[in-house]
């Protein structure tokens, strides 16, 4: 068989690459290898809609017939165990091998497990895969009190869901504010108030030291660095993720907080690309970044498909956007707040509305909003715009856009 493109990882990015290659007219073999069983599915709803409705079949990206019709070889439940770069060949966990012309690493990320005693006890769960989400959902039905270790997006989305289901919920965050890596302090504070108003016990600057078990060996409490203890029979560990870079690193491909790629998304080996959560890529104006976002995964995939199909060497660029559903509030983010030197809260007349602008010098770096979809959509086109133009519109981004303040 002639060699073509081998994609390691069948998440949304890996899937999109396979689909885009065919859409762009690529006619050599395409192999999509995923460790999880079943068809590729969407991950973002796992902590959102799926937790509410449990409809796993709705998450599937395309039916099996799509892969057959498109001539995409789909290998589920298999791992790639090694890359032989000299031979351009990968070894699979079932003992078989696949040759490649181009290899794309879409290996994603895995949940970080803090080194705490008791995390193996029944009742302690994580959330990354559909199987994790199904376990968590089943546990939620029987649980009385939930403790979430980690005040990031996943932890807070789950906390809001559990609270709405009537459970007692405590969120333990070691840092001084919620979602600190991803949002401005203004948003952190706004969301801390939101969760507290929902009845969630939000503890900031509070480190977990371990999980206590009852006589039956089940998790019953989380112990804290201040000597305290929070009782709970369902404990979600949501302490961030680590990019899956080991396969690349063992093959001698450069790795630094992700698989390092250039502006064309190629790794230190020009026959190997990386995309999505596992890829550290240069974003104009922001340096080398790594995003855990479906938008980045899908846009990377389309870019790589075009590069492989047409040989185009164009540089990748994107205006990042992100969202998080927490209770009744949807946080929408455009741009990147990390690296901003000033944050401005813009008071909103609309009830439940929130907007924070992050500035890097006199340029708009990021916009965080709740309940202001029009402002968010305008923000996507205004990242990088000068402050004077936005100020002239009274910090109403829609008005600024109408006034022609394109970046």
């Amino acid at each position, binding site marked *: 068989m002639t060699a073509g493109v081998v994609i390691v990882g069948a998440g949304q990015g890996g899937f999109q690459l396979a689909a885009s290659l065919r859409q762009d007219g690529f006619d050599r073999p395409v192999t999509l290898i995923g460790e999880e069983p079943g068809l590729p599915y*969407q991950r*973002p*709803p796992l902590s*959102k*809609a799926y937790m509410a409705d449990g409809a796993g079949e*709705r*998450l*599937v*990206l*395309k*039916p099996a*017939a*799509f892969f057959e*019709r498109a001539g995409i070889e789909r290998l589920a439940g298999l791992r790639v165990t090694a890359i032989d770069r000299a031979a351009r060949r990968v070894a699979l966990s079932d003992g078989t091998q696949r040759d490649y012309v181009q290899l794309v690493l879409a290996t994603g990320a895995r949940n970080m497990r803090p080194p705490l005693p008791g995390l193996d006890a029944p009742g302690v769960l994580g959330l990354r895969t559909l199987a994790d989400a199904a376990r968590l959902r089943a546990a939620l039905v029987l649980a009385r009190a939930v403790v979430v270790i980690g005040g990031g997006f996943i932890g807070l989305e789950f906390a809001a869901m559990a609270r709405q289901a009537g459970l007692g919920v405590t969120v333990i965050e070691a840092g001084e504010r919620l979602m600190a890596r991803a949002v401005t302090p203004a948003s952190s504070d706004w969301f801390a108030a939101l969760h507290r108003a929902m009845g969630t016990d939000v503890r900031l600057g509070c480190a977990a030291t371990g999980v206590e078990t009852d006589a039956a060996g089940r998790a019953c409490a989380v112990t804290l660095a201040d000597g305290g203890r929070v009782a709970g029979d369902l404990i979600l560990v949501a302490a961030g993720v680590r990019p899956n870079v080991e396969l690349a690193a063992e093959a001698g491909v450069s790795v630094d907080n992700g698989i390092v790629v250039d502006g064309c998304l190629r790794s230190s080996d020009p026959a190997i690309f990386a995309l999505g959560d596992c890829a550290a890529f240069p974003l104009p104006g922001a340096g080398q970044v790594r995003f855990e976002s*479906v*938008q980045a995964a*899908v846009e990377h995939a*389309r870019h790589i498909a075009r590069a492989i199909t047409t040989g185009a060497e164009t540089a990748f660029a994107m205006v990042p*956007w992100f*969202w998080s*559903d927490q209770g009744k509030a949807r946080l*929408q983010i455009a741009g990147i707040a990390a690296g901003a030197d000033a944050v401005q809260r813009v008071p909103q007349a609309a009830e439940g509305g929130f907007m924070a602008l992050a500035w890097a010098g006199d340029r708009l770096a990021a916009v965080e909003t709740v309940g202001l*979809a*029009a402002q*968010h*959509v*305008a923000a*996507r086109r205004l990242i990088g715009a000068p402050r004077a133009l936005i100020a002239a519109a009274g910090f109403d981004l829609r008005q600024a856009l109408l006034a022609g303040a394109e970046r």
Partner: protein
Amino acid sequence: MKVTFIAADGTVTEVEVDEGQSLMQAAVSHDVDGIIGECGGSMMCATCHCYVDEAWAERVGAQQDGESDLLDCAVSEVRPGSRLSCQIRMTAELDGVVIHLPEAQL
């Protein structure tokens, strides 16, 4: 319940849809070209833009909060019948609904 999707090139695809399913999910799960649904139905991407057939406009109803804002991001022309198909849920009343697809979503 049935939904008929008519592509920009005139291709007609009729699919069977469950009550409560969104028209975006229906199109994607039946592999209908012309609907992407990149964000999974979260009203973040506008790649499930569709045109509700005029005869069905009233029964399908008006846009949801924020939908028109996202439609600003749609790449194909926004018309009076424009909707995000992820925001249209199938009901018995919509059995047989006809949906036209735009030329492009990206």
